[in-house]
């Protein structure tokens, strides 16, 4: 195949690395609290702009921005839970109410960001050399994105398999009632889920912002892809999300080339995630590595 070249593979790995960061929190919350959190998109955007303050407004290295974005976005995740979702849980509100509330949170955060920074496009400040790699080109930024994402994936693997906290997190998401019965403080674990999941969304936002540009719609633009990753991977499945993120990254980068070969506008790129989402729902609604639930 003429267009299956090294460049597509490099781009796919970069896209996939970013999607993993965004999807981990989304899939964990989806599994534990049983609702699609639409405000996850704005956690991504919030992270990107937090790093912008550090990197451009304060003139520091983008790495510091990445770290600050992780912490602050994690705290925003916790805040959204404390201020809204926890209250809804204690009232026994339905999943539907939570989704509507998440839309509300998203609107407030996104438009506040637009109010502060305006709708215009912004960029981080950093230098990035380009290297040749097996007939494709890769930038220093791409190498960083892949390295950071891979390192975090290994850290999370370690967290989920070796630490008490990580095992409790998995326990809570697998079976909240059982976890509570075995003495796990579910609400405390949930705080960690929001913090880590939110923080990673923030990192995803910084990586995405560095790879493309910053706009108030940054997170909203990747939300559909993130949901496609979560559902393809199986809701709640960490390893499924990793696999699905790279698969979707490949599908999008390959698909864009295919679109232009077929002389269709590449403006349809978001439709690729949509088509994959629909196919998964039709063929394997519980995803590649998810658990088949009752009723689905």
């Amino acid at each position, binding site marked *: 195949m003429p267009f299956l070249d090294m460049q597509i593979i490099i781009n796919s790995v970069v896209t996939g690395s970013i999607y993993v960061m965004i999807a981990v929190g989304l899939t964990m919350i989806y599994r534990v609290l049983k609702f699609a959190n639409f405000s996850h998109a704005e956690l991504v955007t919030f992270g990107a702009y937090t790093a912008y303050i550090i990197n451009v407004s304060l003139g520091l290295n983008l790495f510091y921005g990445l770290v600050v974005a992780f912490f602050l976005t994690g705290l925003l995740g916790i805040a959204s839970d404390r201020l809204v979702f926890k209250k809804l849980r204690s009232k026994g509100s339905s999943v539907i109410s939570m989704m*509507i509330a998440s*839309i*509300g949170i998203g*609107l*407030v955060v996104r438009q506040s960001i637009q*109010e502060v920074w305006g709708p215009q496009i912004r960029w981080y400040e950093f230098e990035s050399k380009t290297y040749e790699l097996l007939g494709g080109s890769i930038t220093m930024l791409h190498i960083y994105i892949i390295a950071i994402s891979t390192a975090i994936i290994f850290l999370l693997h370690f967290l989920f398999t070796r630490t008490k906290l990580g095992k409790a997190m998995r326990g809570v998401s697998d079976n909240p009632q059982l976890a509570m019965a075995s003495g796990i403080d579910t609400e405390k674990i949930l705080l960690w889920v929001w913090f880590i999941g939110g923080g990673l969304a923030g990192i995803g936002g910084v990586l995405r912002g560095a790879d493309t540009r910053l706009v108030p719609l940054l997170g909203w633009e990747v939300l*559909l892809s993130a949901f496609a990753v979560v559902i393809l991977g199986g809701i709640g499945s960490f390893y499924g999300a990793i696999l699905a993120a790279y698969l979707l990254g490949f599908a999008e980068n390959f698909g864009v080339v295919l679109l232009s070969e077929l002389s269709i506008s590449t403006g*349809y790129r978001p439709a690729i995630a*949509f088509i994959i989402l629909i196919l998964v*729902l039709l063929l394997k609604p519980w995803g590649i590595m998810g658990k088949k639930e009752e009723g689905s």
Partner: protein
Amino acid sequence: MIFDYLLDTLIYIGIYAILAISLNLEAGYTRLMNFGKVAFFAIGAYTSTLLSIAGMPFIVGLIGGIILSALLGLLIALPTLRLRADYLAIVTLASGEILRLFFLNEQWLTDGPMGIRGIPQPMYTVFEDNYIIFYALLVYGILLICYIFAEKLINSPFGRTLKAIRDDEDAVQVFGKNTFNLKIKVFVISSCMASISGTLFAHYLAYISPDMFFPSLTFSVWTMMVIGGTANNMGVIMGAVMIQVFERGTRFLKDFVSLPVEPYNLRIIIIGLLLILFILYRPDGMIKEKKSKGRL
């Protein structure tokens, strides 16, 4: 001038009230999470616009939009309505965005981002001087028909079954009802009604472009339903009045006073806050659902 402004606001209220009633049918009475309401509104707008520009009468455009909306509704409903409620939310949200991309990219058909100007207005030559009065009557005539239709529908055995599906789907299935078929029917009916509203919108403005059909339109209608009173048609009309008076009001205000914040941002932030606050503290909205009379 004030008179024209009032009529203009009234027309907007009427158009959005139709959209809110249609959302109420599927989301309020049946709990179908349509987060892509704007798609059906846009289909109504674009179909009738293109048909009228091609020289067809208004009524043909109106019906054309209804037919296409019904088809799109079926296309979305068939793969998703069997699955979990939240999948419908994700798929409909995505459909709205993909459709907007279609209107944006297919320039041969829609003039892309430029939009379409000079959309013929029905019976313009007859009412030339008092056209806005005629149009207000047209909108309110159609609103009245939609309201009566929705009330009849939900008080019919069909409507009572819908509410029963919302409250306990398994129980309805035990009685041998095919809930999947019923959900498809109400989704398609609501989609057709949304299309009518879109048609009225396009021919009133006489100009449409893809940037009128952002997802925020969907959530504005959701806000009307949530604050007005979910599953109460009079309530959602009240919601449409409040949100439209507020939206038109802030636009109007902009010309006279300078606000410290961008009115558009402020509007979206307030809509988001209203959604959150009502879901948290007044989930039934201003007017509660009426207890249904009669038996299933």
